[in-house]
């Protein structure tokens, strides 16, 4: 029998210092990106976090049913309209009462970018000391796959269906991560499930940065059911999203953007879209629009990450000192 090559255990396991507080049998679809992310967070950050969640795909797991619970974390079931404001109330009282805490405001893209964007923006503007994690599955999945503000151009959902006249979403997606980074909040970052070590590091950085104020994590979390993908492809979809610059990985400390993964030879976006039925109706012309979007956002990101060093705009020489 050939000597089995003793591979080295992945370093990611070193970050998983805490137990998985969730019951093993919970209601997420097979291959759900959200399930992996939800279990991953407390395994990295610890089981003393206070996590808030809204009616969503995570609700049947995050929120208790009568007196029974699916996990051992302290949680707060919020409304989509109030998520970040609820988290604000928690951290403000804990600060007043001197209670040490890590509050994780855990929401989908619908809450973060659409119905709850107001209080997300307010919490960022007030620099509230908690971690807001958006799991972006690009649509309202719990209600059965409707379009959201982060649904990409072209994608079909049940509210942007394929019809003879209209064919999928004809609007661009909002880039939530970039929007939040613009506020010079202590920490912003994007992350996804193919790069778990990167995700773990960013979670720990957020936990440290929250002492100085608001932290926002934009995590790309595919939904096989909603995207018409094979459940086995969830991680590969994340990998290709990064490799095509569809979902670049970066972080921003006090608004200064730094790529955490530079893709030397980015592939064209169709190597990403081919894994999901929601894109399969798209014409050449549609794909060009999507590719242009991806490149526009990536160049914007590139520009922002070198802005100060190579800024051509006139700046008052007198107070050239550190702006922060």
């Amino acid at each position, binding site marked *: 029998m050939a000597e089995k090559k003793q591979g080295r255990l992945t370093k990611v396991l070193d970050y998983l210092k805490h137990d998985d507080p969730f019951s093993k049998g919970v209601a997420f679809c097979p291959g759900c990106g959200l399930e992996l992310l939800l279990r991953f967070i407390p395994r990295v950050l610890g089981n003393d976090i206070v996590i808030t969640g809204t009616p969503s795909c995570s609700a049947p797991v995050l929120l*208790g049913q*009568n007196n029974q619970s699916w996990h051992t*974390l302290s949680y707060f079931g919020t409304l989509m309209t109030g998520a970040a404001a609820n988290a604000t*109330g928690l951290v*403000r009282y804990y600060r007043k009462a001197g209670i040490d805490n890590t509050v994780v405001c855990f929401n989908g893209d619908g809450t973060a970018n659409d119905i709850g964007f107001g209080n997300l923006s307010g919490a960022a503007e007030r620099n509230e000391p908690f971690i807001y994690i958006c799991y972006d599955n690009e649509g309202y999945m719990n209600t059965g796959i409707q379009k959201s503000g982060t649904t990409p151009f072209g994608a079909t959902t049940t509210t942007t269906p394929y019809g003879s006249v209209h064919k999928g979403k004809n609007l661009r997606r909002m880039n939530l991560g970039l929007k939040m980074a613009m506020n010079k909040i202590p920490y912003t970052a994007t992350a996804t499930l193919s790069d778990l070590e990167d995700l773990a590091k960013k979670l720990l950085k957020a936990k440290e940065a929250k002492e100085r104020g608001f932290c926002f994590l934009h995590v790309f979390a595919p939904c096989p059911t909603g995207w018409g993908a094979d459940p086995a492809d969830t991680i590969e979809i994340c990998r290709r999203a990064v490799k095509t610059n569809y979902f670049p990985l970066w972080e921003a400390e006090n608004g200064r953007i730094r790529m955490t993964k530079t893709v030397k030879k980015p592939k064209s976006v169709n190597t990403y879209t081919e894994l999901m039925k929601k894109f399969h109706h798209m014409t050449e012309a549609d794909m060009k629009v999507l590719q242009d979007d991806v490149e526009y956002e990536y160049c914007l990101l590139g520009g922002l990450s070198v802005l100060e060093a190579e800024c051509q705009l006139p700046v008052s020489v007198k107070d050239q000192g550190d702006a922060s």
Partner: protein
Amino acid sequence: MNTTTAPSRIKVITGNAAAAIGAKLARPDVVAAYPITPQTEVIEQISTFHASGEMDCELITVEGENSAMNAVMAASLAGGRVFTASSSWGLVFMYDAVLAVAGARAPVVMVNVNRETPGIIAVSSGQQDMISTRDAGWIFLIAEDCQEVLDLVLQAYRLAEDHDIQLPVMVHYDGFFLSYLSEGVDIPEQETVDRFLSVLDDQPRRTALTPGQKLGVGSHGILGGYMELRHKHVTAMERSKDKFEEIDKEFAGIFGRPYGGQLEEYRTDDADIVLVGSGSMCGTIKSVIDDQREKGMRIGLVKIRMYRPFPHQALVAALKGKKGVGVVDRSLAFGFEGGPIYTELKAFETRLDGTQLISFIDGIANTDITKTNVEKMIQMTRDLADGKDVPEVTWVSYPEANTKGEK
């Protein structure tokens, strides 16, 4: 003219300022502030107290009323004492959170400065915002004057945070007519207020969301669990009636101002006709009653101070045997001809042994409930009691509505 109370305690301030001072004296941990006419001065005053260090609270200048209620809900469920204030469109913008607060039994105390809502843009006084949210599951209290605004805020904390109650309380007062009216108000000493509120510290601590405590709030209520929670809520609302009476007596003992609990009965003992009203209109009504009394008119006022839960037992006891009762509503009940409070009282008409009820709608959209309006209402209630033909509903300041009516 000698002064009755120590001069330094009486200050001439607006209703809004009285609300802000009441909040300050209660020492809240977290205050959420978002401006809306006519409430703005409340949060401006609190911001000033906060800036000067007079108020050691976490002040959250939120981006909208919805976030105001959500922030104080969470802080309250985490164990903190909280305060916020709003009005009309702001109150209905936060309505989903208002419902969530009641469902979660978070003892939030809020001031609502009554203003016309919903549907027609009107920056003017009326109780429609209170009526639009009356079934939210909150305790509703209504103040008549600036002193009562301050006092009700303090009483609201004793009621909301009482271990047997644990319900959110909203203190209503008329925008414009009271929010902007300045009158002498006795500002209690901080120590006296601390003593009044310290009763709560001797009670068991309520359940609070604490990191690492394996406890969560905001769970699904499933079938029997949902019904159990709702039943606990309904019974707590009922308990709050007697609790409010006890708090009123204790308050009178400490601060020297008895109000009468759920209702204030003004010269009703020997009256055979009565007006039922709430809010700032009651001041005008009382002065007209005194004038009419001198002319031999046996007229009294029942002032509603607790509107939710609806004080029907107290109302029946106060009105039983009266010949005629005129209910003055400063709002509308869409779907009914008469006003909302009139319609609710009508449900108990059979327990009043033949007392006849009529409905007056007045004072909406800043219309002034003048003395002559009150005299007219009293005269119509007199005619009702004397068996004359009187329309069931009268829009006192909008005669076009009273097509059958006179003049």
